[in-house]
């Protein structure tokens, strides 16, 4: 029995001191393998007398169980230590900086963003988006819009012309998006509600004018819409666009050949700080031109002005962007300076919606 005690002490000590899983396996084989010390002892049980066996059997089985358990325990400890060591060796410097993803660094130009904002607002009011070509005929850009040939009103538009053709026709770059009003009214039965965003051109260049700029026009034609509806529409639009609760508008009589009555609209604002704040303050700022579609224009589109009526307005998209987002200089819009685009541009996922707030 004392031999067994000695053997147990030796084996448990060896297990406890095993430094690796391999060493532990060696000890297991030397104790519990086919020719291991405990296995050898077990083989002697058969030759023993029943009495001896009654004592030695449980003793050997107990020894075997205790050594097996000690090995298992040690194995867990060693595996844990090995994992710790591996993990320690695998650590990296997680402070290393990463590049922003492309979706973080790309930008949408303010003109596109503001056009999307306008689309969101007016789609909600039942307007579609109409478009037309930049190269226009004199007829659609002027004559059909009630600019008589040779009238001084034509000179208010510094027009870019193309060279005269053999048949005497001279095409031009549209000076406003209004020719699309004509195209729309000639191709679509009222009721009509459209906005017309697009590029327009005038032969003019200084701090506040560029030879190319963007306009959006609105056109409503039906049998009932009057200046009151025009006012209501513009108020709703400006409140939604500038994301303010109130706007105060002032209508002033003015002149455009294609509307009668014609008006310019001032919006109340505050200029006391560095920026213009719409919806507060006591200053007025001229913001757009509008009017009731001229009877001659309706006639030119085959509509009876005693039956149909409606209104139109026009405003600069670039100007709207400048007022809302604070760009100081129009010319920079078309310079493609990445610093400007990064600063004033919008993230690709910032798709303007009314339910999420246009700009938030």
């Amino acid at each position, binding site marked *: 029995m004392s031999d067994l005690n000695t053997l147990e002490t030796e084996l448990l000590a060896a297990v406890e001191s095993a430094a690796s899983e391999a060493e532990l396996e060696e000890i297991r084989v030397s104790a519990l393998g086919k020719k291991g010390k405990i296995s050898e002892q077990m083989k002697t049980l058969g030759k023993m007398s029943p009495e001896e066996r009654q004592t030695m059997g449980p003793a050997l089985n107990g020894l075997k169980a205790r050594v097996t358990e000690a090995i298992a325990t040690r194995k867990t400890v060693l595996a844990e230590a090995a994992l710790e060591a591996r993990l320690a060796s695998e650590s990296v410097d997680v402070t*290393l900086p*990463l590049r922003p993803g*492309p979706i973080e*660094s*790309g*930008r*949408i*130009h303010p*003109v*596109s963003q503001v056009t*999307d904002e306008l*689309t969101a607002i007016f*789609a909600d*009011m039942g307007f*579609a*988006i109409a478009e*037309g*070509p*930049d*190269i226009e005929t004199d007829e659609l850009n002027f004559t059909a819009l009630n600019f008589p*040939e*040779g*009238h*001084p*009103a034509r*000179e208010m538009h510094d027009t*870019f*012309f*193309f060279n005269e053709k053999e048949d005497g026709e001279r095409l031009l*770059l549209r000076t406003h998006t209004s020719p699309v009003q004509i195209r729309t009214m000639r191709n679509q039965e009222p009721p009509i509600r459209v906005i017309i965003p697009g*590029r327009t*051109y005038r032969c*003019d260049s200084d701090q506040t004018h560029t*030879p*190319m700029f963007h306009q959006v026009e609105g056109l*409503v034609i039906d049998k009932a819409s*009057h*200046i*009151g*509806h025009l*006012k*209501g529409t513009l108020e709703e639009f400006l409140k939604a666009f500038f994301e303010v609760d109130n706007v105060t508008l002032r*209508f*002033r*009589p*003015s*002149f455009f050949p294609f509307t009668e*009555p014609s008006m310019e609209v001032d919006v109340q604002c505050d200029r006391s700080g560095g920026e213009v704040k719409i919806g507060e303050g006591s200053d007025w700022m001229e913001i757009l031109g509008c009017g*009731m579609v001229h*009877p001659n224009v309706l006639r030119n589109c085959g509509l009876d*002005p005693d039956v149909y009526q409606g209104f139109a307005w026009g405003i600069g998209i670039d100007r709207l962007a400048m007022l809302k987002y604070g760009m100081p200089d129009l010319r920079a819009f*078309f*310079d*493609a*300076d*990445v*610093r400007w685009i*990064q600063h004033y*541009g919008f993230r*690709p996922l910032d798709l303007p919606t009314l339910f999420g707030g246009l700009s938030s």
Partner: protein
Amino acid sequence: MKFTLSWLKEHLETDASLEEIVEKLTMIGLEVEEVTDRAAKLSHFKIAKVLDAEQHPNADRLRVLKVDTGEGEPLQIVCGAPNARTGLVGVLGRPGDYVPGLDVTLSVGKIRDVESFGMMCSERELELSEEHDGIIDLPEDAPVGVSYAEWAGLSDPIIEIGLTPNRPDCTGVYGIARDLAAAGVGRLKERSHDQVRGAFPCPTGVKLDFGETKPLCKAFGLRLVKGIKNGPSPKWMQDRLLAIGLRPINTLVDITNYMTFDQGRPLHVFDAAKVKGDLVVRRGAKGETIEGLNGKSYEVDDSICVISDDNGLESIGGILGGEISGCTEETTDVLIESALWDEDTIAATGRKLGVNTDARYRFERGVDPDYMLPGLEAATKLVLDLCGGEASDVVVSGRVPDDTNIIEFPLSEVKRLSGIDASVAEINVVLKALGFWISGSGATIKVAAPNWRPDIEGKADLVEEVVRIIGLDRVPSTPLPRTGNVGAKVLTPGQIRRSRARRSLASRGLNEAVTWSFIAKVEAEAFGGGKPELTLANPISSDMSEMRPSLLPGLLTAAQRNADRGFPDVGLFEVGQIFEGDAPNDQKMVAAGIRRGTAVLEGQGRHWSAPTRTVSVFDAKADALAALAAAGAPVDKLQVYVDAPDYFHPGRSGALKLGPKNTLAVFGEIHPRTLGVLDIEGPLVGFEIYLDNLPVPKGKASRSKGALNASDLMPVRRDFAFVVGQEVPAETLLKAARGAEKTLISDVTLFDVYEGKGIPEDHKSLAIDVTLQPKQKTLTDEEIEAIGQKIIASVQKATGGTLRG
């Protein structure tokens, strides 16, 4: 249009303040652009007299003045003006005074060692005019020591309105007063209708001679005033002319200018002594020229209306008088002309000759025809009052037209168009106050516009008159009724494509640019453009003369500008129109982008995480495919062709097509020769997507996406490597592998391209990973082997390649 407050009050009896008048002008459509109070900024400047002017000891051109300021000792002032002389009465600025024309505040200074205690000012220095040839030279009796601004009547505020082209009636102060009176600001003072009785017949006849052609002059009135004395006009008239920026010349000329601005009635005066024979008003003849009063020479033709006499051309009718018969201080007999010209001819002549005069401005907009003769009478009276003399009878040629247009005006029109509830009485009062003739009292009245309102054509114009005067603030804000149901789709397929392409390109790290629609000729030609029908006749500059045939030149030159500013690694894109011709359907929508330097998708510049990589054709190809997919193109059906346009590198570019004819996109490295033509540096890659070429998505019967068909059986993957000729496109091999077994092969990817050791020269190894997706049952080894053989055979047949051993 400029005028002063006191001038306005000459025609308008009112207690209204300046502020009230300015506000009302703006609210009735005569928008006030500026109110200038010249006295406020000049209040310090005093009238002073030069007691003595001596030569400066150290400078030839300077003089040292002793100036009496009206108080205390005379001041010593150094002055360089050529007209500085003893006895001159002028305007003095002293130390501490701000000189607006110079933008300086005066201080005591030393000029060439002589102390100076102020300056004698020119008109330009006080911003009174552009005159700067000498210092202001006042009449000898101007009171020394008095405020110059006060004495000169500068305390009269100048009001400037921006006049719209439809309001010729307000090109004169009287018309503005009439509009204000109608709007309730005071009472209009009636102008005189007195006629000057002629003492003798007008010796000069007038003939309108247009033969069978359209008359360019409708009527022409003329009279002689003889025995006059011309000289400087009176101070009140000079003050008013100076206030609105006109230089007084002599009384006769000043009277014509005064009538132009006071009544909106341009006139012309001829020195009768210089006119030979009768006046003939006719079309000009090719080759005839005239020296204008502005000192320039003009050549006329038969579209231009001229006045001639036996000496030749005397005047360009209604636009510009001739130098030859101009009035001077020596003039003793004057012919006064008051005429009516054809508006379109005036406008066309002015444009053709490039002449902008106050007369043209009024005649092309349309003057009051009924005031032609009263205007002549009023001018005659001014001449007699200011210059003396004796007037002849008036001769009139032609006929003053009566264009009265009676409009049937249903009063309900006001409400129909404006939404304002205006009473019948209100409407009547406004129209009458504006000088309209009204007849009838029912629901529809007859209305005729006064002759000074050629802009009034129909009912809508009358509505404008009513709401303009009763006030647009009475328009009730009315919500536009909602139409139909919630949220109908409003965008067209093209608009949706553009929006998606734009957002997808930005999400790939590119910056959206908006570049000019017109570019330089050399740029257009390098990209297949430069057609004559797309060349502007009047470009703003030579590098903005051609409508762009491609978005790439604008983006490429923008990239170079960024590089020149120190930002060489940029990615830009634009979604916009290009022009293949001048017809509406030649304008196409394109999305295009470029990447320069190291501006790859992962990020630009150097980074620890990966080796630095410059842009390649594959970056451009990836951008194009991503945007095409976002825009809804069937990208799985696209074929890659190698025939990209010649502004791309021929070996590093491609085209994405649906069939051989329909190109959806092109991409590649920009050709080095193109970079050279544009004078820019690479590396640069780019792409263009022709959004209009995308097939229109078919309307779907159902929104349902159908059931998911996912197999329970494990997919099987096998690798194959083939050695093929270097010229074999990978696409050919992949297509052959995919087509080898249609039902089981679900995916083929190319995972390795190798050339070099172990591969014969001019060959390459392409390794593919084939995924087989069993549908009914697990595949046996034999079945898999059989498919492998099919793949090998198919690839060998298509490419001539062999399985790599």
